[in-house]
């Protein structure tokens, strides 16, 4: 459903992405692993149409349509949900307002996400429904960022490092959440540095190296046994 083909991206003179390509299929969870500074976040932001680098090339195709040059809101309205790095919840809005402010009906007949369903999914958020988002803990903010993206009723979820800065116990909550979402017919492109999360969730894992090159691709089981790939590209 999502095809990223030969993306080139520069910031000033730095060549961040040099020919990055990947694909996400229907109902598939693809995990993009890589160390800091390899261009993972840049790639997600380019797919989401945010703040494009000065120069870029390549094409992004979504369900047969070229969405490379669309504005970020147009891309979101086509069913691509976005969970930004660092959560970025709307701090001066309450939990409920965070969910309602970007709510949108689903394109097809899928079971729609609404505030009640998000609260069913994250009971913790219901307890804090009238709190301002900036008073939430890191884990609660991550739940809210995911719930907020679900309220746009996406068919693909872009998630940029949901595990970042979370305590191990909250990591478990997020992992269970993503596992549940995976079973609900949603495709996910998960960008991570956390190997455990990637191994637990990904149908397919991609390793990204310098300049956004995809240097390895395979299943979690295959990655577990490939010690050479792990040490070269992830340093583990």
């Amino acid at each position, binding site marked *: 459903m999502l095809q990223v083909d030969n993306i080139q991206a520069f910031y000033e003179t730095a060549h961040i992405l040099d020919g990055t390509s990947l694909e996400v299929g229907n109902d598939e969870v693809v995990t993009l692993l890589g160390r800091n500074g390899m261009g993972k976040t840049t790639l997600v932001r380019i797919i989401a149409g945010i*703040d494009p680098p000065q120069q870029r090339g390549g094409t992004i195709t979504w369900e047969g349509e070229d969405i490379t040059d669309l504005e970020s809101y147009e891309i*979101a309205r086509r069913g691509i949900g976005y969970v930004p790095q660092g959560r970025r919840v709307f701090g001066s809005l309450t939990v409920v307002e965070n969910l309602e402010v970007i709510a949108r009906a689903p394109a097809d007949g899928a079971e729609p996400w609404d505030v009640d369903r998000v609260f069913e999914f994250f009971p913790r958020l219901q307890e804090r429904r009238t709190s301002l988002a900036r008073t939430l*803990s890191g884990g609660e903010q991550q739940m809210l960022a995911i719930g907020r993206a679900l309220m746009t009723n996406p068919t693909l979820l872009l998630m940029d490092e949901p595990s970042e800065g979370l305590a191990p116990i909250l990591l478990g909550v997020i992992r269970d959440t993503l596992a549940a979402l995976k079973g609900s017919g949603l495709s996910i492109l998960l960008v991570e540095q956390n190997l455990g999360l990637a191994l637990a969730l990904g149908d397919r894992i991609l390793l990204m190296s310098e300049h956004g090159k995809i240097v390895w691709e395979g299943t979690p089981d295959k990655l577990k046994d490939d010690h050479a790939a792990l040490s070269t590209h992830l340093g583990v």
Partner: protein
Amino acid sequence: MEHSAERVVDTVKADRRRVLIITALVAIPLIAWTLTQMSLLSFGTQILNGLSFGAVLFFLASGFTMIFGLLRIANLAHGGFYLMGGYVGITTTLVTGQFWLGLIAGGLAIMVLGVFAERVLLRRIRGLVKPEVLLTIGLTFVIGDLSLAMWGGDPRTVPLPGYLKGPIQIGDSFFYPKYRVFVLGLAIVLAAILFYIDRRTKIGAIVRAGVDDRETVAALGININAVFTIAFMFGAFIAGMSGVIGAGFLALLPGQDFEILLFALVVVIIGGLGSLEGAVLGAAVVGLIDSFAKALVPELSFFTLFAPMAIILMIRPNGLLGKAP
């Protein structure tokens, strides 16, 4: 536990703010009163003068602060919007004989001007602070000169309908201009509308979310450029109306654009940039200070305007109700 502690801190902060607001609003008149021992009647007059001038400033500052919060543009053409809106209102009122039509025409004319400024001029230089400042100042000069060419340099006021003319009697011996009371009421109505939109409507929530994080709002499917245009239009509309309202008791003349802009800037700096409550508080504070200072120490009126601002900025760099960026 951690959460309830945070919540308590939040409530305490909110309470401290409320105390701050009330103290400021009560302290200024009381200090003035004790210093001068004015009579109760002239004391009341000064309070109403201050609040009604503050009402005009609120009209101007609320749009300014909203545009700044959302678009991060300090729209220095806001004073020009005020001046030209006032002139358009005067002319419309003279031609039609209807004050209300003048009020709306002043707002609409500036709304059109605002859309032009935002879509055609400012959009090209989005995010570039210096060009934005220069452009909006330049726009003020252009608006000022156009106004001078079209309406001349003599002080102008808007003709008021009969029912807004003359004094209103309160008690046995207290008389006060009806029109200023009307302006005060209008500002309260506007504040109520703005707070309702801000707190209770979807567009208000979108604007608040946009103030927090424009990029993420857009990436979640909101056409933020359209929201920017709507906010700019709305801010320009109230700025134009404020010119007509102000022209009822402050004469319009060339140079007023910069003078009123200065006041509006002090209002939003004292209140806190991007904060609606801040605009209410700042407008009341500045209006009261200006009124008492002009009555008591007219030769120091600029000092009394800027000294409190400097002190507040030293204690609270983001203004009384501003958030840390």
